[in-house]
């Protein structure tokens, strides 16, 4: 069975693994023990102790916080119950003018702000930009991911939550 060390997984996740090695991992059969090594790598990275149950973004995690399961930023900011849309508890910058869109798209043809706006969802504590939506004005904010957390652990990982 294919397997990699925790150090290799850490470099892979950090984008620092040399490309030839990364390429070999991409082409090889996948390592079935990846998930828990990955979680261990991420757990080392965060500055808090709540056990990570499932990563849901580049710096966003579902974790066990006391009796609750919550969505948490890498900085420790808590967005509340993991079953709720974390974006509703975030901070937001909306780019809906030519001037604000031009800051990100300096030389391109721009969207018509009457037809589309750029929404940036930000951690109110550390300022990390967690997600960007490009949407028509008035479009409901998307709830990106509702994992079947219990089913995943029980049926796919074969381990209790």
């Amino acid at each position, binding site marked *: 069975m294919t397997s990699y060390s925790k150090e290799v997984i850490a470099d892979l996740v950090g984008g620092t693994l040399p490309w030839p090695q990364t390429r070999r991992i991409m082409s090889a059969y996948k390592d079935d023990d990846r998930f828990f090594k990955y979680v261990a790598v991420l757990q080392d990275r965060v500055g808090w102790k709540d056990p990570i149950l499932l990563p849901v973004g580049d710096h966003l995690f579902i974790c066990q916080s006391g009796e609750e399961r919550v969505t948490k930023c890498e900085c420790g900011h808590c967005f509340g119950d993991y079953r709720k849309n974390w974006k509703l508890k975030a901070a937001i910058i909306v780019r809906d003018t030519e001037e604000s869109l031009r800051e990100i798209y300096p030389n391109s043809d721009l969207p018509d702000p009457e037809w589309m706006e750029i929404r940036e969802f930000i951690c109110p504590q550390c300022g990390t930009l967690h997600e960007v939506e490009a949407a028509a004005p*008035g479009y409901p904010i998307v709830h990106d991911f509702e994992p079947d957390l219990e089913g995943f652990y029980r049926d796919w990982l074969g381990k209790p939550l």
Partner: protein
Amino acid sequence: MLDKPASALRIRERLIESERLMEETGCYDGITELELRNQDPLKFETLHTKLRAYCVSAREMARRISASPGVREVGEMVVAIYTPEGDAIALSNGIMVHVHTMSRFIKWMIRNGYEENPQIRDGDIFANNDAFIGTVQVPDVMDVVPIFHSGRLVGWAGAVCHELEAGGITPGGDVALAQERFTEGLFVCAEKVGENDEIRRDYVIRCERNLRMPIYWVLDEKAKVASCIDMRESVKALIDEIGLDYWMQVSKEFIEEGRRAQLARTRQLTVPGIYRGHTFYGHVTAGKPGYQPLGDPDWLYNMPIEMEITSDGKIIMDFEGTQPWGYHSMNCTPAGMDGGMFVTLTQHMNFEGLVNDGAWMATELKLPHGTWTNPDNEMVATATSWALLLPAYGVFQRLLSRSFIARGFVEEAFVGQVNSPMIEMGGTSQYGTLFGMAHFECAAAGSGALAIKDGLDTAYVGWNPESDMGNIEIWEQNMPMLYIGRSIVPNSGGAGKYRGGCSFLSTWLVSKTDHLRLVTSEHSSRVFDNGGLCGGYPAPTCQKHRAVRDTNIFELAKKGAPLAHHTGTNPYRSELEVRLEGRHVTMEGPYITAPHKTGDVFTHSYNGGGGYGDVLERDPVKTAWDVENGFLTKEAAEGIFGIMLDEDAEGFPVANLEATKRHRADMRAQRLARARPVSEWVAKERERVKVADFAPEVKKMYASAIKLSARFTRDFSIFWDVDAKSTFGVE
């Protein structure tokens, strides 16, 4: 009539029985045990590898027969081998979109009594490009031949080429101006076009008299038939070796194994749950010449996708809430939607070789009736269905990628594909002859970023995993335009910790013609039709066209003065305006105008991919390299990414890490100061939503989605705490 069916049943009954067995057992054709695989796994795998080799070899051979630079240069072809019931067993590389579309074509003929009339016999050749029977768009012309062994139908060999000219209302294959089926061009509707391994002369004459450039279509037909015959003979020889009974069993086991492998791979790489995303597409045609007033000229399309990964590993994609079909050429049939799903899966999940219809069987598409994904009117046009398909399956790629990130397979996460702005042309060629052609350098866009590195620059499209822009010299042989520039477009990838791949822009001088019609399609207006992931931004994919008529370029060349080779990076004054005199044109939406002539200059830009991660985490050293090589501008490095660059002794950019750190700290503080709580923004926006204070096209989009979807109506109403129907005046 079949001389002797493979089983006691006729093929139509066999097909129905196969579907019944699948429904009853959950396994393909009732194959609950992989007996032959278990008996001798090595023999099993070797046989599948052989079948795949037959396909790859047949396709490569056939490409040499084609006259089309689309097939010869950029590989717009795929071939496959099918069961008698029309399920794909093995396929070649190439445009793998079509493996299941051809399956639909074969099944359509079986269901529609082709055994009786026109009959299915050894040596017959059947062709189709009708998307409601089984293809994506009118230029995707497919040929299949039955494979008989010992007088029995034992399978089919099939091939598809994307034709560069389809004889529609506008030249090329992706007929931009088609608003109904009747203007899309030459249709071949599941026809028997040849017998005894020979293409019928009357069919060739029909092609010759209905196409602007029949040499492409006709020689592609010969290429496809040659590849089918090649595969057929290889399969027959294989059956001689392994025996007919073994073949009939093993071919089905390959498919059942493909189905099981897909389910297992999903369980291995992803996390079960519900994933959601969306994108948009703007279609702007008001006032353009040629459009019939059949419907509203300007459309905003929303494409919401909900993907469910079930606990058994099945992937279900639901398009509920999207827009109705329209009087334009961007509608798609279920066959096309299958194609989009198939080509995405082959790239994202089935990278180990055993790819066939089994993978498709492990998925499900929910395509709401009456929408562009499943029109309730078979007269609609589908010639540019990729315009909506590509953005939609880009969303699918991002949804899958989120599942890979959750599971830890970050190296597979990929922000996805973008649309492929197409340029097509016709009129009088540089040789003084009639011509028509789709230019296929679009087969090399920027890709979305990965979760561990930047996207590919000018090297990827979703619809052909072997993406290739082709050589300039080949394209110049086929059209009356000369390249005066082919340039990377700086900042064209979506910004992010890892940026999207950059696009390129071509600048042409119209040459040696007094009548060149240029038409573009599959590029969004007024909205980006792609997205970023995990904090990355979408790529800037709403682009206008710039041209100059009656230029002074020959005078400039004579004087040795500088010419314009690209549009530059000043959004308010292009290089064309700086360098060239003449009538300057900037056009939004499909480029449909009066013909061009020698001395005119035209530019066409492709798309970059979306970004991944927070821009403030981007590597400064890599960014200096990007600036040095023209992928980013120094201004973007500083203004978007917060990366301060100095110059070394030779004038090359180098990252100033200390200054970058300080600048980024300022930017982060400014970001926090500028942001407000989402709850506050929602409360304010709600006031706007309550009175539907939106542009007419936005209001129309909401009203259409609400009319077609109870779920969209409910979600919208709950989110904004309004009555969506009364807000948008929907009964």
